[in-house]
């Protein structure tokens, strides 16, 4: 069998494959990530690569323009390897690991959140004054044991427990056999000075790790938000409660489908579940690895991981078959998952470190919204609050400390920059603000002020609102071909508006918004607004009666509330009621990582929430269709939008 060698640029990763192999699969095998949302069907056009050298064959596709074809662009999934190749992966096809930029600074700190880090003396857990007590999932304590004597001949294990109980007032319930087997030698070799990692496993406290010497100052955890489209992680010092860094990346499972349903279907294929599971574990491990390397933290000092995510994501993370989620009567295998060893799922931290998942409410409302409720403190307040988590699987919680209800809306990934032709996540180079001037030209601002590469969710919200105001777009989302600008043009039989011309962008093509993109965004905003409207109506309330509306989601650094109302994503109520809270799921995940006592609150919240199944509500479809208009078919619901 003939072998061919492929070099991928710019990473310089290489691989040998058989002649005739599929280029996208070869890249995956080489550990090179190439964007693909259709799973290699040749449909999405996201896996564009440039063949610099070598022989290949590629199927013709409309996704490659004639100009691109001249430059040897092709879709990796439609290309077979015919000889040694040098392949360049252009920026737009690459997965960029990036910082979600100082999330701390921009996130409005909400009342009821974990209080700022206080001095912690000698690794001793202290009771915090805040609402949440400082009680990380895994705590390290240092113990100097008195040597055994003939008078004090209690066993090694009991000696250790006795010491911890007397010094730290912690009752240990259990320890693994493995720890006990090692204990005798370990204590004697370490001169009776050891650091013990205590883990919270549901109601009990157990000895997780015993190490020689004093490492109690080095105890770290990672909080995760596992989204359908985006995975974010945050490295936290479990002693000082300080956040060391945050990273976000595309969920690699996107390769196997854009939404949870496609992925559940993929999971039923041969080795599908394994591939989905490995994809997300890879995501998490690379985030952990980069964060720990950047901050000089040894992997062995990471002792706990906390995850929030929708129910399907949690199933895939734990490699639990999600098949039954999409079959009537839509029952998941587990919404409350016990604390397990991280290593059992493949997560690489300390081999005995713990993994905890925030409980979910139902099959379609997961731990992410529970984490969001905790982060925003909704369950502590009298105020009637609506929390809109705008993600691929949009989730909405509504209530206060007395009661709570929730629902989910399949919004699609448009606000996360997927499924739209020039969309991207809220990372460097993404257009996040747009204004359109009197000559109908767009003025844009990008994240980090770098050259524009694409448009992120907040950019699309601004863009649509501006296009509507300037009559570039009609209320039904069609572009106005009669508008006096050359920026509106017809390409491939479809109208589009040029936001940034090629020469001012760094992606090598004009950044445009097509009518089909608008259609996708319209459906996303319609799904979210109508779900919220139905949920509120279910309780015989109106938007005006709500005290606070929190908006969460990966919008990056900015969200223009006024524009979001203009396009009908958010209800037209007093703007003072709105607060943009960023990634509330990640914040909640961190709070629970730092305060395991809060896990009880999360469990209570999850149990308390009434799940409203929208598909059963006859009014939902009607409300959805009337939301497919800018801002809404019932314009009178948006009196301030003219």
């Amino acid at each position, binding site marked *: 069998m003939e072998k061919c060698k492929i070099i991928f640029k710019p990473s310089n990763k290489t691989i040998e494959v058989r002649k005739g192999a599929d280029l996208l699969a070869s890249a995956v095998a080489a550990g090179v990530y190439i964007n693909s949302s259709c799973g290699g069907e040749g449909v999405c056009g996201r896996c564009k690569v440039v063949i610099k050298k070598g022989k290949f064959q590629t199927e013709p596709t409309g996704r490659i323009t004639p100009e691109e074809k001249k430059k040897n662009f092709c879709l990796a999934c439609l290309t077979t390897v015919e000889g040694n190749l040098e392949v360049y992966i252009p920026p737009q096809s690459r997965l960029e690991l990036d910082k979600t930029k100082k999330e701390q600074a921009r996130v409005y700190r909400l009342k009821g959140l974990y209080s700022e880090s206080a001095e912690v003396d000698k690794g001793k857990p202290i009771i915090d004054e805040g609402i949440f007590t400082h009680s990380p999932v895994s705590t390290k304590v240092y113990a100097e044991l008195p040597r055994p004597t003939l008078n004090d001949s209690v066993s090694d294990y009991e000696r250790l427990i006795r010491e911890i109980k007397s010094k730290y007032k912690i009752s240990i319930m259990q320890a693994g056999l493995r720890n006990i087997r090692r204990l005798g030698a370990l204590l004697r070799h370490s001169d009776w000075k050891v650091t013990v990692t205590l883990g919270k496993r549901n109601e009990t406290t157990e000895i997780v790790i015993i190490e020689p010497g004093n490492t109690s100052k080095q105890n770290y955890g990672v909080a995760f938000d596992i989204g359908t489209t985006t995975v974010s992680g945050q490295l936290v010092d479990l002693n000082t409660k300080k956040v060391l860094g945050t990273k976000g990346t595309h969920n690699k499972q996107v390769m196997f489908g854009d939404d949870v349903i496609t992925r559940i279907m993929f999971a039923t294929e041969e080795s599908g579940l394994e591939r989905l599971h490995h994809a997300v574990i890879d995501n998490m491990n690379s985030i952990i690895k980069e964060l720990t390397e950047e901050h000089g933290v040894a992997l062995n000092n990471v002792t706990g991981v906390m995850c929030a995510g929708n129910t399907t994501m949690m199933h895939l993370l734990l490699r639990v078959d999600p098949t039954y989620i999409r079959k009537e009567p839509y029952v998941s295998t587990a919404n409350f998952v016990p604390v397990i060893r991280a290593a059992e799922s493949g997560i690489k931290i300390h081999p005995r470190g713990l993994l905890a998942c925030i409980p979910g409410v139902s099959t379609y409302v997961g731990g992410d919204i529970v984490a969001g409720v905790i982060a925003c403190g909704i369950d502590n307040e009298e105020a009637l609050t609506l929390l809109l988590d705008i993600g691929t699987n949009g989730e909405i919680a509504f209530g206060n400390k007395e009661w709570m209800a929730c629902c989910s809306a399949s919004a699609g990934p448009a606000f996360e920059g997927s499924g739209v032709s020039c969309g991207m996540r809220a990372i460097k180079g993404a257009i996040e603000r747009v204004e359109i001037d009197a000559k109908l030209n767009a003025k844009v601002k990008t994240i980090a002020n770098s050259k524009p590469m694409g448009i992120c969710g907040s950019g699309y919200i601004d863009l649509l609102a501006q296009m509507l105001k300037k009559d570039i777009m009609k*209320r*039904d989302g069609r572009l106005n071909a009669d508008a006096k600008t050359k920026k509106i043009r017809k390409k491939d039989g479809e109208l589009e508006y040029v936001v940034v011309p090629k020469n001012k962008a760094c992606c090598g093509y004009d950044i445009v918004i097509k009518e089909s993109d608008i259609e996708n965004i319209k459906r996303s905003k319609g799904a979210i607004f109508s779900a919220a409207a139905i949920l509120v109506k279910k309780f015989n309330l109106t938007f005006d009666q709500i005290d606070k509306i929190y908006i969460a989601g990966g919008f990056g650094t900015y969200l223009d509330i006024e524009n979001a109302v203009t396009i009908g994503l958010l209800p037209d109520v007093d703007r003072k009621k709105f607060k943009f809270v960023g990634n509330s799921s990640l914040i909640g995940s961190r709070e629970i990582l730092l305060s395991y006592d809060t896990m009880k609150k999360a469990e209570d919240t999850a149990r308390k929430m009434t799940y409203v199944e929208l598909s059963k509500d006859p009014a939902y479809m009607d409300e959805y*269709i*009337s939301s497919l208009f800018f801002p809404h*078919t019932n314009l009178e619901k948006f009196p301030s939008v003219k």
Partner: protein
Amino acid sequence: MELLKEKWPGKIAEITIGATNAEGGTRASKITVGGETTLPFLFHEGDMPNMPRIAMEVLDTEPVDWPEVLKKPFGDALKDPAKWAVKCQDEFKAEIICVKLAGTHPDFGNKSAEDSAKLIKDVLQAVKVPLIILGSGDDEKDNIVLSKVSQAAKGERCLLGDATEKNYKTLTASCLADGHNIIAESPIDINIAKQANILISEMGFPLDKIVINPTIGALGYGMEYAYSIMERARYAALIDDKMLSMPFIAFIGQEAWRAKEAKTLFSQAPEWGEEESRGILWEASTAACMLQAGADILVMRHPKAVDVTRGYIGKLMGNK
């Protein structure tokens, strides 16, 4: 005991089709519909100042899919739209003529815009009643044909259609320029009906010149679905949703005569009874239901069905 009465704050817009000499047109009569302040025929709760009207359908090409029983009353007139229109006006007492330019469709004759404009002029010469003019349903061709036809009928205050939420701009602009009314069509969907009205009115088109075509189904073919959508729209209008406060037009004839119960020959289904009255009853029953749903203009085909329906309207209005 006192009867509980609903007080509606809203009112359906009144629209007038046809312009007389004094108004810059050439029509001998004009027709006003709409203006309701109550659900259909509930005179104790509000008023229905204008009675529902029946328009008779005339095609620009000889119909190919009409059954014999439907063709018979018109005879040779089917070959000449102007004669056909005259027959409807004089013999069958049609108050409005609805000309459908079906033959302009690229797949069914592809007649030119110029021919259509001439045809409309001929019909306007031949009859004195107001006109409804419809395209073929092919968006691109309609945009060419209807703008010519609109010019040809300038000043006659016709009712032109159909504008859809996907294709409304050209027709709206033409109707605005030439002083016509417009039909806004939606696929049995109250939201899209409203959206189409908003889009059209945002081009500066007056709300009291729009007629809603909610699209209907005939008896046995989704009639009750159409009924419920019309009922909901009418409720919304009566509680003062201006974007739904327009009269309805219902295309009874084309739907009823599509039903196999209306078309099938006696020889093919003797158990269904004789074909002579079957189709007529199918059309008249559909019309009766649509009147109850709130239809203001009924577009019909068979003269006998028209007769029966006219009698029915008369009786209902007699209770006023």
